[in-house]
């Protein structure tokens, strides 16, 4: 199948899956992922590995768009309200997950460096799928705000920890051959964080400044997509982190642009096809066969991560004196696991192929489970918290 046909198939299938899952009362994103698994190489094979490789550009764009929207949580006014709370919760939650997953892997006689890497990757919360569910149910409210912020901070913490852990292990010579010199290792950490922030800020400045000059919907859309693509493209060229660049782009725009609302609305009216393609591709990448090879370590990874997320958010919320609602319901809302975790594991395995056998099956198997259960869990939390606001059918949206 050529690329155009596979995009068409993906779009139509995602629409169909979205309709079907409504009967089962599960989020559309889960439907997209399941549709991806079904048409992907591990089941029907309608979309093969070659198609997936050529469609990866869509994934990059969709991920950049998703993170751009999450970045708006760093708008100074909003962040002042919930910033301290989500930082405390996220750090507690990440620490719990790291400790439990690492401990479980050590208990199962894994090498300590492998255990530590598993613990670090397990910290990640799937930003894309969680945000999609929030958007599908038009979620709004205190809990939604905390969830969004917790995901943004979580991804930054996870990426930073991962870079530090891999650099430490590399310098200590625990990862074997495959890495570079100490200078290259340290450079990578600094460049990925500071360089990415610098690029995101510069493009954000451009977007915020130019957005005052464009009025029409079409022009706004061109500007927005152009800036997001510029970020993603330059990040790939300069070997920067798309995650950090897009988050900083979103944050800069939210703080500096007087037209944030219009940009967000234009984005929400434009990006559904990107998201549909993104999640179907993400599903197609997941291999059902991994479930068989998960083994005891895979099960321990899943259980320890889930417990770590639940306990960590609970104690973090208590520590931050948050409301009872946040304390009880934040944990199940941050179970999703994908995007960044896949990227981290694959980048590590590309550099150190000898880690493939020990890491890939466990993490990707865990992602398969959490990526299906995570969005369902977020939906339940949002409905229970009463923060779902049904969209008005046929309602008019007014541009500024």
């Amino acid at each position, binding site marked *: 199948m050529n690329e155009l046909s596979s995009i068409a198939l993906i779009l139509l299938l995602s629409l169909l899956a979205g309709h079907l899952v409504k009967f089962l009362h599960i989020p559309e994103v889960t439907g997209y992922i399941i549709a991806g698994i079904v048409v992907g190489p591990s089941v029907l094979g309608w979309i093969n590995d070659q198609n997936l490789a050529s469609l990866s550009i869509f994934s990059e764009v969709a991920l950049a768009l998703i993170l751009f929207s999450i970045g708006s949580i760093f708008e100074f006014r909003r962040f002042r309200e919930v910033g301290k709370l989500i930082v405390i919760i996220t750090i507690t939650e990440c620490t719990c997950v790291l400790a439990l997953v690492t401990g479980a892997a050590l208990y199962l006689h894994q090498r300590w460096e492998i255990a530590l890497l598993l613990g670090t990757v397990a910290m990640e919360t799937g930003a894309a799928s969680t945000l999609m569910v929030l958007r599908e149910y038009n979620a709004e409210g205190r809990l939604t705000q905390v969830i969004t912020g917790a995901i943004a901070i979580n991804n930054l913490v996870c990426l930073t920890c991962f870079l530090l852990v891999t650099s430490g292990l590399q310098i200590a010579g*625990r990862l*074997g051959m495959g890495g570079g010199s100490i200078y*290259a290792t340290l*450079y990578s950490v600094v*460049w990925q964080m500071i360089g990415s922030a*610098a690029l995101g800020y510069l493009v954000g400045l451009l977007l915020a400044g130019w957005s005052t000059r464009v009025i029409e919907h079409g022009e706004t859309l061109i500007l927005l997509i152009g800036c997001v693509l510029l970020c993603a493209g330059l990040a790939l060229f300069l*070997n920067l982190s798309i995650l950090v660049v897009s988050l900083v782009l979103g944050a800069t725009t939210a703080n500096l642009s007087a037209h944030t609302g219009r940009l967000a609305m234009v984005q929400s009216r434009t990006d559904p096809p990107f998201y549909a393609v993104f999640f179907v591709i993400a599903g197609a990448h997941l291999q059902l066969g991994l479930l068989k090879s998960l083994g005891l370590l895979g099960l321990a990874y899943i259980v320890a991560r889930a417990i770590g997320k639940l306990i960590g958010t609970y104690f973090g919320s208590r520590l931050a004196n948050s409301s009872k609602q946040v304390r009880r319901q934040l944990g199940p809302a941050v179970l999703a696991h994908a995007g960044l975790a896949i990227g981290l594991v694959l980048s590590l395995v590309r550099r150190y192929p000898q880690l493939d056998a020990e890491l890939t099956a466990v993490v990707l198997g865990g992602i398969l489970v959490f990526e299906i259960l995570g969005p369902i869990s977020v939906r339940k939390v949002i409905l229970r918290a009463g923060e779902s606001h049904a969209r008005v059918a046929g309602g008019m949206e007014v541009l500024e």
Partner: protein
Amino acid sequence: MQARHRYLAILAAVAVAILVVGFLLRPTPPPTPTRRVSADVTVTHAELDNLRDLVQRNSLRNVAADFSALADRVFSQVTTVRPWGTGAVVLPGGNILAPKLMGRLPQTIVLTSGEGPPHPLTTANWIPGVPFLAATVQDSSDFSPATLARAFPIQGSWLLLVTDGVNRPALVSPGVFSGLTDAHCGPFLRRQLQTTIPLTATTIGAGVFDLSGNLQGIVAQCDDSISILGIADIQRALADADSATLLVRYGMRLSSTVSPPGATATTPNNVLVGELWTGWPADTAGLQAGDALLSINGQNVATIDQTVAALSAQGAASFRLRVRRAQRIFFAEMKPIQLAAPDAAPQNALELEPNGMRLLHVASGSSAAAAGIRPDDIVLRVGDLPATSERVNGVLGSYRVSAPVSAVIWRPGRELLVWIQP
């Protein structure tokens, strides 16, 4: 407002500076690993880097001294297998892992440790498909057990192959670990260690140790190739086979009966003979599939585990089994496979070979000669059974056989199945 713009502009200038400086200071990418073939071994860039690092940190003399010190330390953990002189490794608990050659056992195995006396093998677990024999000797205190590695080595680290030999000098050979690959060596084993250590037939059975002195793997013959198999996989293979069946020593598989309602776990008589191999000890003892084993040497057995434990008793020449078949209870005498003594082979007609018995003479006009068997052929099996001197003499030694019998013989380059007619 202007102040705000000024701050934003300063921040933008800093961001540009970061990007420019960062881009200019980027490290040069490492060279793409390529393989270079030398006369003896294939060396990757990673391995060369590792060697260079090692040499920079220590002089070559020190490296050699390190290896020698390690070899001295681990030599006692490697024993010699006769008659073929390859190595064997002693595991904690006294089990000795000896390799099979061409997938077969020798007829006689004697283990020697250092200058100590030779130890004839008393029991041997012969597991089909596993290229190792798990053996024990009557007194294993002369052998030093190896310390087993708990994890695979880091890629690029050094490994040391150590083997001892009766008819050749001891061998110490260092090499760099370059990764793991899937091994297709029998039904159980999965991973083999890739190294730059040259492997030949003389290294089969050698122990491969890491620089901490832990046993990482053992050199084995897998089909036509020689590989280093990870110790954990070997142990798992042996454990799987041992716990699942008693095929190993007696050619007998056990199964449990379905306990009647109300029965407890210790309800007796629930161990059944499930499968038998013709000609193996259980079959020779007269057991049949479906027989229930009641006791072994007077000790009641109610579970498969108890049966395996009782039949694994060391040093027993035979076992007296109480067996129930339908409504009849009887006793059967079962003898473990006894390995022939080295001098059992008549020297004038047969010669012991690692994998069978070499025929020195074939009487012209005999059944064997008529079947195309020639002097210097090595008899591997007689019928379904391994070729012992007794069996070879009994069948091929007689001028005329009384009934058709098959034999598998090895003639340089190929294995042949021949039918010997009366």
